[in-house]
Every structure is written in C-alpha cells, then in structure tokens.
C-alpha cells in the first residue's frame, strides 16, 4: 500500500475512534462539543508515558483511555447538572480549560506541542479501531445500550420505566471520554506530535458535525460520518490534482463539506444512517435470499 493510502487509512481509523467518543454520549442524548478536551488528555498522557517514562505503546494506549475516562467520570457529575444549550457550552468550556492548562505545562512542551518518537503503525491503529468498533456494537446490544436509547428518546419516560438516569448518563459520558483518550493516544503516536492549537475548538466542531451527520441511532453512524468527513475532502483534493480545470475544488472542499452538512440536516435530520435504513438494508438481503 502506498504511503499516501496508508496515511489516509490511519487518519480515517483515528477519526472513527474519536467519533465514537462523541457518539456514546450523543446516543444517550448528551451533546458533547468538547471532544478535543478528552483527545488532548489522552494524547498528552500517552505521549508523556512513552516519551518521558519510556513506557511501551501497549501500556500507554490503555493508560490514556483510563486517564481520560477517569477525568470524564469526575467532570460528568458537574456537567450533567447542565442541560440543552448549557451542556453544549459546558463541554466546550471544559475543552478550552483543558487546552489552557496543557498550554501552561512547560514539561509537556507548552505552546510548541509535544513530540514523541514511539510510532503506532497502521496495523496497530487498525487493530485498536476494530476493537473499539466491536466494543461499541456490543455495548449497544446490552441492557445499558437499550437504556441509553431510551434516555435519548425520552428521559422522563425512561425514568418512569425504571432506567437509572444518572447511571446511564454518567456511563455514556465516561466511556465516551475513555474512547476520546484512546483516540488521542493513537493520534499522538501516529503523527508523532500533538499540540493544543490543532486540537482545539475547530476540531471539536468537526467531530460533533460528522457524528451527527452520520447519525446517532446505530453504531454504523459514526463510521459513515468519519468516512464522509475523511474521504470527501481527500477525494476532492485528488480530483483537483488530476484535472487542473477543477483546481477550485482543492480550496473549496470544506465548502462542499459544510454544504453537505446543511443538506443532510435538511433531508435526513436523524443522520445518514438510521435504524430504518439498516432495517431496509437487511430486509433487502432477506428478500433476495428467499426469492
């Protein structure tokens, strides 16, 4: 595989892991505009472990997930006191505070960012991503997954039917944070670098956008969103390279992405991949087999 293709594939895999970190809270009805916060915690924790303490990746990646998960657990209680727009703003503020604190730790590189030498190759990144996808698919099939869906659809009714609302929300938020940490650990070791500037507010906005665009009803949504978000800009860039007449596509690929977001929200407000779509998809194959 060429360097270019494996680079895009690794980026796609990391985007999928980070997408699931926002998807899990969103599947329980919690909007998280602070993906960058957990990615930064995980990335800096894993980076510090390998670069400063010489820990192997097999230790650093789970440790990053645990660190981000622990912090997500602690902040979930105050953040769950807020609702609606306030929660969007609170998670956004949390990410900014995390960034601000990391910016002021000279041992971790400050504004210059953290460079590491340990490298997470494509097989490792793909392996971790596959594990994360399998974990989320399994989680949604458990009672907790069912409870998350109930809470997402209607908190009050879920409460009446005996869902432990607080438990479900804290679990969704904490697991999401942990996945964000794993994503950050992969990110820092794939690119050998992480900094607060590039993992900032725009990053959080992009993640939330492609998760909601993909759809929060099924575990396939974030994959669809990350695929679209990663491949459409790359594809437009390739087209612009191959055909000079279409040069304008190079600069305008994010305009196309933004317009696609607006249109998807108009035509498929629940996202590209919905439960109905998956049922139809399976139904299509079942009918074909019987025919």
């Amino acid at each position, binding site marked *: 595989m060429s360097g270019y293709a494996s680079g895009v594939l690794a980026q796609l895999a990391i985007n999928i892991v980070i997408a699931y970190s926002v998807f899990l809270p969103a599947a329980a*009805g919690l*909007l998280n505009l602070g993906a960058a916060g957990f990615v930064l915690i995980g990335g800096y924790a894993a980076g510090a472990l390998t670069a400063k303490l010489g820990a192997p990746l097999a230790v650093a990646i789970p440790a990053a997930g645990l660190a981000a998960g622990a912090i997500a657990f602690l902040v979930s209680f*105050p*953040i769950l*006191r*807020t*609702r*609606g*727009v*306030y929660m*969007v*703003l*609170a998670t*956004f*503020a*949390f990410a*900014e*505070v995390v*960034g*601000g*604190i990391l*910016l*002021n730790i000279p041992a971790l590189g*400050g*504004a210059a960012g953290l460079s590491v030498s340990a490298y997470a190759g494509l097989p490792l990144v793909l392996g971790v991503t596959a594990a994360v996808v399998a974990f989320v698919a399994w989680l949604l099939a458990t009672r907790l997954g069912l409870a998350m869906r109930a809470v997402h659809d209607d908190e009050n009714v879920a409460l009446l039917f005996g869902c432990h609302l607080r438990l479900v929300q804290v679990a969704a938020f904490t697991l999401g944070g942990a996945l964000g940490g794993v994503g950050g650990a992969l990110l820092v070791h794939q690119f050998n670098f992480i900094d607060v500037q590039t993992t900032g*507010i*725009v990053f959080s*906005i992009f993640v*939330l*956008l492609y998760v*909601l*665009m993909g759809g929060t009803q099924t575990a396939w949504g974030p994959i669809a969103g990350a695929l679209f978000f990663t491949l459409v800009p790359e594809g437009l860039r390739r087209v612009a390279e191959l055909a000079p007449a279409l040069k*304008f596509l190079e*600069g*305008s690929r*994010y*305009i196309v*992405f*933004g*317009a*696609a*977001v*607006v249109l998807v*929200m*108009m035509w498929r*407000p629940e996202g590209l991949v919905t439960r109905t779509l998956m049922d139809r998809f399976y139904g299509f194959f079942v009918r074909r087999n019987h025919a």
Partner: protein
Amino acid sequence: MQTLQQIVNGLMLGGILSFVAVGFTLTIGMLNFLNFTIPALFMLAAMTMWALGTAGAHPFGVGMNWIAAAAIGIAVAVAASLLIERFTYRYMKARYGDATEHALPLVSSLGFLLIFEHLVITLWGTEAQRVDLPFADTDLRLAGLVVGIPQLVSLLLSFVLVWLLSTLLVHTRTGRALRAIAENPDAATLMGVEVNRIVPVVFVIAGSLAALAGILYAASYRTVSPYIGDGVAADAIAGMVLGGLGNVWGAIAGGLLVGMVKVFAISSFGAEIEKIPVWGLLLAILIFRPTGIFGHTKIGKGKF
C-alpha cells in the same frame, strides 16, 4: 495609572465583545437557537470591507471609499444571515415541529460557519491582511490614558442599540410578535403571528450587530483575517452565559466582564494563560449558577 489603563483596555475590548454577545443572546432568547454563524458574519463583514476598500486586493479590490465599503460589508453579512435563516431555523421549524427539541439548527449553523469561512479563504487566502484606513490615528488621549475611538464608539453604540431594541420590543407590533414567538412559537402561530415573516427580523438584527462589530474590530485593530471571528465569538459566548442567556443587558455586562478578565489575566500572567480564567469562570457559572448573573431560567432548557 497602569491599572486604570488596563481597566480602560478591558472596557474597550469588552465593548466589541458585548456587541457580539448581544447578537448571540437575541437569537437564543427569541428562537432558542445557539447561532454559530455569528463569527462568520463578523468576519465576512470585516473581510468584505477590507477587500472593497483596498486597491489591488484580489478579487474585488477597487479601492472604494471606506464608509461605502463598510456599508456593503454590513449588507453582505445581513444577506448571508437571511440565507442562513432560510436553511437552518425556518426549514426545521416548518417540517419538524418544535425546532428547539432538535440539534439541527445548531449543527446546520456550524455547517454554514464552515461554508463562509472557507469561501473567504478561497477568495482571499488565509493570511492576516492590513487595513489601511485613511485616518492616521484612531486613539484618543485623555489625561494620559489611551482610548481607542472605534472601541469607544462600539461601547456607546451597544448601549444605544440595546436601549433602542428593548424599546422597540415593548412598543411596536413587530416587537410584540417577537416576544410572543420567544414565549411559544406554536401559540404565537395560532394567535396569527406570521412566524416566517417575523423570525427573519431577528436574523437581520443579529447579523447587522455581528457585522458592525466586525467592522469596528477591523477599524480598531487595523488587521483582518478569515479567523478573526472565532476567538471573538468564543469570548462573546462566555460573556453571554455570564450575563444569562436571553438577557440583552446581561450580555453587555458579561461582555465587558470577559474583556476585563482577559486584559487583567494577560497583563498579570501573560498571554498563554488567558484561556483558563475566562473558560474556568464560564464553567463555574454554568455549573453553579446556570442562569448567569442576572438571567432568567426558561431559556435553553430544551433537549439540545
């Protein structure tokens, strides 16, 4: 003297922030919609003014009179704001019932933020550009204090405009319709308020506030770039929350407070630390007093 100058600087920065914060708080108070396109409108007006006013800016560099360029900048931003209304708030409203129960307008507005930012980048590149205004010096010196005229204007203008807005809201027919929509859009429709005609008014007001702020920003800092809106809007959101969502006077107070906190944090601890006090304060307010310093409780309680 040093401290006094810092207070003045904080108020000057806060003047622009409170302008943008009023735009945010109006859309959220009236329509329960966190409008993330405001930074794009802020930037669009400033960049349009720069491009039209600078001879040789490619494209559209015609070296136009600066006042006319500013007016066109505001007009472009208002037109963009109406386009945004058409594809975010109105569409959701018409087809999916209570738009406040959906994340859709929020998400679509983030999409529009991307569209406009990258449109400007495609046209004029990502570099920061100098704004060569013909006025030699926009600073006023009063008893040893340096006061920026554009910031002073924006501070005074924000007071005047907010006073005007609150008067219009109470005393005109459109104002009454707007308050009815803020209370309950469905009930307002039943009472004969044409929601699709009245809601664009909010977008025109919010768009022109953001555009004016962008132009005053360009005039006082003499520099524009496609990214100027992001930082200002983030601080303005912090100011809006401090003042309480939907409270216009609170937005002004919150904007000024954020300006002060930023200036004092930078002058006492350096530029790298400024995020922590502003966002820490915002996080604390959201958790312990989510209605803000003087807010009311009803707004933003929808699911998203």
